[in-house]
Structures are given as structure tokens and as C-alpha cells.
């Protein structure tokens, strides 16, 4: 037994404090779900702007995507936590997590959606516009439903990255799983070993099923409709590297 980094008493302590980890996991999960919803909302909106063919709208989407994709999430979180309160905008860490992680991944989802829309032949848009559909209706009823299966794998991978990135909340003491595990380990008996193992396993259990689903679904798509789908997937994959 002794007092090594993985000594039995450290595990006992961890399991008696399981609430710390359960609450952290809860925060991580809720933030991930809400941030994902926000990211999807932003992503679909911006993806449609990018494909609208209207220059100023495309520029707005472009600036947004470039800004969020080319600056670190950690800085964005830190900025909202430290700089915004100086001009009177106070947000609690939970809202900061949802907002910033949602905005950040919204940029990536926007690129996925844009690539998905691109993968649908232009004739479809022209046909539905000629039938009197507005641009929004064309997207809503004709284009977007067709993109779903093609963008589902990259979107799922985005969800995995988003879950992992909730750990950026730890930078501002966000109460998420990573933060709670780390502060539990450093405040108690320095039980880093067990704390990190449990944390790693919990994240893995959240992410691995999603990542596996994305891979299997993509393989299924490729095997079912070889020529067209593979070409569409290639279009989507080219844009989505993050």
C-alpha cells in the first residue's frame, strides 16, 4: 500500500469524494450540450450566409470564421472572463463556457455546413428557386435536408472536439470535470494519479462512442453509394480540418 502515487488510500479518498467528479461531469455535459446547440445554430446560419452568393453576407461569415478559427479558445475564454467585466459585462463561468465554446465551434460547424451545401449540385438550388422558393425556403426544404447525412460524420467529430474543449473552462476555474479533478487532486493528498485516470476514463466514455459512430457512419456511406457520396465526402473533408 504505502503512499505511492496510486496507493490504495488515494483511491478510497477519491471514491468517497465521488460527488466532486460527478458534479464536474454534470457541468461538462450540460455545457457541452448547450454549447453544441449554440454552435449548430451559428453554424447553420453562417453556412447559409457563406453560400448565399451575396458578397457582404459572405464577408460577414468569412470574418467570423477566420477570427474564431485562428485565435486560441483559451484566450477567448480568458478575455470574456477578465476583460468584459471591466466594461460592466459580468458573466458566470458556466455562461462563459457555453457562450465562448459555442461561438468557437460555431465557426467550425459553419465550415462543415458550407461544405455540405457546396456538395449538393447547383441545379437543385436553381430548380427550387425557379419553383418560387425563397432562398431560406430552398435551404430549409431542399438543400439542408440533403446535406445531413453527408455532414453528420464531421459534425460528430466536431462534437467530440467540443467535449474535449470544455476543459478550456478550467483556465477560469470553470467548475467542469477537468477543473474539479485537478483542484481535488491538488488540494487533498496530491492524489494526481487516481484523479487523472478517472477523469481520462470519463472523457473517453463520452467521446469514444461518438468518434466510433462518426467513423462507422462514414464507412457505411462510402460503401453504399460509392461514386457520388465519396466525391461529396471529399468536398466536405477538404474543408474540415481542425
Amino acid at each position, binding site marked *: 500500500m504505502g503512499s505511492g502515487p496510486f496507493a490504495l488510500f488515494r483511491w478510497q479518498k477519491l471514491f468517497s469524494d465521488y460527488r466532486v467528479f460527478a458534479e464536474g461531469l454534470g457541468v461538462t455535459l450540460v455545457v457541452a450540450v448547450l454549447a453544441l446547440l449554440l454552435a449548430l445554430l451559428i453554424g447553420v446560419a453562417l453556412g447559409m450566409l457563406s453560400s448565399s452568393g451575396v458578397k457582404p453576407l459572405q464577408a460577414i461569415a468569412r470574418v467570423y470564421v477566420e*477570427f474564431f478559427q*485562428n485565435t*486560441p479558445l*483559451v484566450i477567448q475564454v480568458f478575455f470574456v472572463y477578465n*476583460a468584459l467585466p471591466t*466594461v460592466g459585462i459580468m458573466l458566470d463561468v458556466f455562461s462563459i463556457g457555453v457562450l465562448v465554446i459555442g461561438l468557437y465551434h460555431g465557426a467550425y460547424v459553419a465550415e462543415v455546413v458550407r461544405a455540405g451545401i457546396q456538395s449538393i449540385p447547383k441545379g437543385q438550388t436553381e430548380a427550387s428557386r425557379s419553383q418560387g422558393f425563397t432562398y431560406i425556403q430552398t435551404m430549409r426544404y431542399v438543400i439542408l435536408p440533403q446535406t445531413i447525412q453527408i455532414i453528420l460524420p464531421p459534425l460528430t467529430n466536431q462534437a467530440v472536439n467540443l467535449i474535449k474543449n470544455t476543459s478550456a473552462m478550467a483556465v477560469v476555474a470553470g467548475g467542469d470535470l477537468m477543473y474539479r479533478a485537478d483542484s481535488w487532486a491538488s488540494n487533498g493528498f496530491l492524489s494526481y494519479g487516481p484523479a487523472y485516470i478517472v477523469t481520462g476514463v470519463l472523457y473517453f466514455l463520452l467521446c*469514444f462512442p461518438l468518434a466510433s459512430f462518426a467513423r462507422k457512419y462514414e464507412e457505411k456511406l462510402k460503401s453504399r453509394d460509392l461514386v457520388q457520396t465519396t466525391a461529396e465526402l471529399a468536398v466536405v473533408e477538404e474543408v474540415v*480540418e481542425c
Partner: protein
Amino acid sequence: MLSVFSDIFTGPNIRYFLFGILTTLEIAVAVVGISVIFGSVLAILRNYEKLVLGKLAGIYIEIFRNTPLLLWILVCVFTLRGGTPLLRGSLALTLYTSSVIAEIVRGGLNAIPKGQFEAGYSQGFTFVGMLRYIILPQCFQKIVPSLMSQIVTTIKDTSFLGQVAITELFYRSKIALSSLSQSVTVSSAHVFTVFLFVALIYFVINFTLSCIVRAMQKNAPA
């Protein structure tokens, strides 16, 4: 407003930031360089799923791809012995990035027609010789844009190292702000200027890289 600028952009502060940029870039380049080698080995092994080593490579990749980077930074910095925190933190970033690059390389390998392998073997190439002269050159040509995008991601990821007091750019911006508060009354203008300045540095570096990637993708033969 001018006094805010003269408070922040003093000679020593500018040097302080410059060294932060340098540290960030050095870490990112070293990490991606080593990860390309390690990731390629992992990718090649993973294609041989029946071998024990192939299975281990698969397990390694899945574990690192499905857990957060920050976890590995904390693990390496707080539980490993030896080396500096900078070295241990960079090790964590390398272990993590290797798993991502492994999947990029594997994508490149899988895009090479099977006939190339068979042709190589039939010409008497050894396995390593074939990879070295036939397969990998074609593979890397295909994945250069993805690897460049990975540099952008890794530059952004280095900011997680600031969490364990490694003096890269993000950490230095925090320190610069807190040392500023000892000499002047820090206003919101100070805080905004420092963070927007630091964000701008990351942006300029990464945006330049992103533009290069896009230009390469446009020029690449389909």
C-alpha cells in the same frame, strides 16, 4: 488612450512578448516535427491490425484522440519526473498531436492504390524501402495541407501550456497584465489592449498559415 499604449508597449514589455511569441513558435514547430515522425509510425502500424503492435497503435490513437489535451498536460507536468516543465508540457502536446497526425497520415496512406504496394514488392523492395521510396513520398504530398492546418491547431493548443506556468505567449500576457497593475492603475483599456494585441499576434500567424493552406488546396491536382 496614448498613455495606455505607452504603459503597455514599453521596451522591456515588447521584448517580453517577443520571447513569448518565439517560445510559442518553437514549441509548435518542435511538437509538429516530432509528431509527424511518431504519428507516421503509428499510422503505418495501425494499418496492420492483426499484429499486436498494430492493435497497440490503435489503442494509443483512440485514447489520445478521445481525451482532452489539458489532461495530458497536467499528467505530464505534475506526475512525471525529470526535465523542465516546458519539456514535460511539450511532451504532452507531442503525445496528443501525434495521435491526430497519425490519423491524417493514415488517411493519406489509404488513398494510395493497393497496386503501388504490390508493384513495389514485385520489384524486390523491402517493406521499409518501399515505404521510404514509393508510398510515403506520395502520401505526404497529399497531406501537406492537412499537416499545415495541424500547425495552426498546435499553435493554438500551446496556449493550454500557459495553464501550468510555461512562459509561452498567453502566459506572458497574463504576467504582463499583473505586473502592469503594480506600476499603474489598470483600466479596462489596458486589459482590452493587452488581450486584443495578443489575439492579433495569434491571428496574424495562423491566418497567414491558413491562407497558404487554402492556396495549396486550390492549386492541388484533383
